[in-house]
């Protein structure tokens, strides 16, 4: 898969590999590199949550309700970021929450990207079904994604699995349109015609010939879809429609936080900060990816 467009090669005899080329382009964007580092850090937190979390995510220390963070007055080093209203360690919940948020993002992106790409290619190669698919996507795009997700959850019922499903369903249309648009423009190119003349079947044409050349914008959209999924999941959790307590989901942690705004600001501050930092890092990374993978998209947005 060579998603990278050829750029001016250095004076050396061998052209740089596409990966090296990509990295050179990506690393000129300092924000993107910073985003990547933060993102890797969040992934590390999520993977190592079992090892580094000082406490269990749902264990309640009844004698230490609403303990302030360790640097504040009355805080203790036992609970670095303090405890919540029923005595659970905030830091441990955030670490396990990272695991959940990343999983939600990953599953939602996968569940929307794969069907989205398949439908987009189908719309290009089978124009008759294509019209129906595109109309259906228009209907889905008519509702703002959070509202559509709320509608889906209203039907399916609240919960982590349904949250992921709702977010995935909502994100499908953007992939369909993207893949259709870029595969339509590939369809008339010589290499596709050559491949068709060489006797490649429709499925081979769809997935082996055309799809790899549509991947650059898909990867960028998937990155932004990842951060969007985390935000939407947190919003649903906040509204009480997402992951249910005592699940340490970042948005769900904020659902009851309003009651403690006057007494315990750490209960409010840290989960939101975790969401913001993660989403910001992914968006920074997405900007860098877009510039590196697809210079044509630089102008947009």
């Amino acid at each position: 898969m060579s998603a990278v467009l050829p750029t001016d090669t250095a004076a050396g005899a061998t052209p740089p590999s596409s990966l090296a080329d990509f990295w050179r382009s990506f690393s000129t964007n300092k924000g993107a590199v910073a985003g990547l580092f933060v993102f890797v850090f969040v992934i590390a937190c999520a993977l190592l949550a079992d090892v580094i979390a000082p406490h269990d995510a749902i264990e309640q220390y009844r004698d230490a309700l609403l303990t302030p963070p360790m640097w504040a007055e009355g805080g203790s080093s036992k609970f670095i970021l303090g405890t919540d209203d029923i005595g659970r360690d905030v830091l441990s919940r955030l670490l396990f929450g990272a695991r959940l948020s990343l999983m939600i993002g990953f599953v939602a992106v996968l569940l929307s990207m794969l069907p989205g790409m398949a439908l987009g290619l189908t719309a290009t190669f089978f124009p008759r079904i294509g019209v129906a698919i595109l109309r259906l996507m228009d209907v889905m795009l008519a509702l703002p994604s959070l509202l559509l997700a709320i509608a889906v959850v209203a039907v399916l019922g609240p919960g982590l699995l349904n949250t992921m499903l709702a977010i995935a369903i909502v994100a499908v249309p953007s992939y369909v349109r993207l893949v259709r648009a870029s595969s339509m423009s590939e369809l008339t190119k010589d290499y596709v015609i050559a491949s068709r003349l060489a006797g490649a079947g429709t499925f081979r044409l769809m997935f082996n010939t055309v799809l790899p050349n549509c991947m650059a914008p898909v990867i960028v959209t998937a990155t932004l879809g990842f951060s969007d999924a985390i935000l939407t999941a947190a919003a649903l959790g906040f509204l009480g429609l997402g992951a249910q307590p005592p699940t340490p989901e970042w948005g769900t942690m904020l659902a009851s936080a309003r009651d403690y705004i006057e007494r315990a600001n750490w209960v409010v501050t840290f989960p939101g900060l975790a969401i913001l930092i993660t989403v910001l890092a992914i968006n920074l990374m997405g900007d860098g990816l877009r510039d590196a993978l697809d210079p044509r998209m630089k102008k947009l947005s």
Partner: protein
Amino acid sequence: MFGFILRRLALVVPTFVGITLLAFSLIHLIPGDPVQVMAGERRLDPAFHAEVLHRLGLDRPLWEQYGSYLWKSLHLDLGESFVTHEAVWSEFLKLFPATVELSVCALFLAVVVGLLAGVIAAIKRGSVLDHGVMGLSLTGFSMPIFWWGLLLIMFCSVYMREWAPAWALPVSGRLALEFDIAPRTGFMLIDAWLSGEEGVFRSALSHLVLPSIVLGTIPLAVIARMTRSSMLEVLREDYVRTAKAKGLSPARVVFVHALRNALVPVITVIGLQVGTLLAGAVLTETIFSWPGIGKWLIDAISRRDYPVVQGGILIIATLVIVVNLLVDLMYGLVNPRIRHAK
């Protein structure tokens, strides 16, 4: 132009039918049937159950039910709430002005600040100011707005009450409790102004500040980014150089010559923010107990008040379709290339 309008209108019909299908199936996909939901935990007499199903028309074939649902929806008959037994449409009409007022204020804030920030960033390209604006707007774009709302409540109300009580902002509802003014237009700012009572307008305005900031944050970030990139492109054009060479003042070149052309894509983006605003209203209204349609929808979901959920989703989706249609038509009016494209 006429053909363009017709083509664009023809696209709306299947979309609307799809939305009604979605809203219709909503009530049929929930576990159990609406009568069981209304009955809640109580035991249901089978004969009574069948009678109510019949009375509500829920025992007829699905296509017949859908037909009558569509017919009724087109006549604004969206059923009545399980909880208040009031017609869904009239409940919506009562609450809608609050959402409009909030959205208009949020959008106003977003457009004014966003345009200004975008223009400044474009003029001072590469400067600290530019990086600051872009950094802030990316942060705003990544902001979980419900948390942003909680932070603002913490700083502008809870802490402010200790630092400078006079500046503490209210965080709940549309008006201080001590005032009671007759609703005339449903828009609190206008009603307060019309009432002429002292302090009412000030109270209504102060209730709007924080929710507008929260709701306006994401549109603001999007508008600032879009204005900057669109401005950067326009500033490179020959006619801008000509205007400069003629000796026009920099302000005139930027705001009169360049900005006008840079605005075309920005207007589209502003139009597209209506969806963001309505979705954001759900969160913002929940945080600030703002009695609009967003809070109405969430309350209805938690009370399992399905006619309201169904009607609310249908109305909001229709609103978004209509606004998107208007934006497209306006864009076609401004930009002939769109109008003549296939």
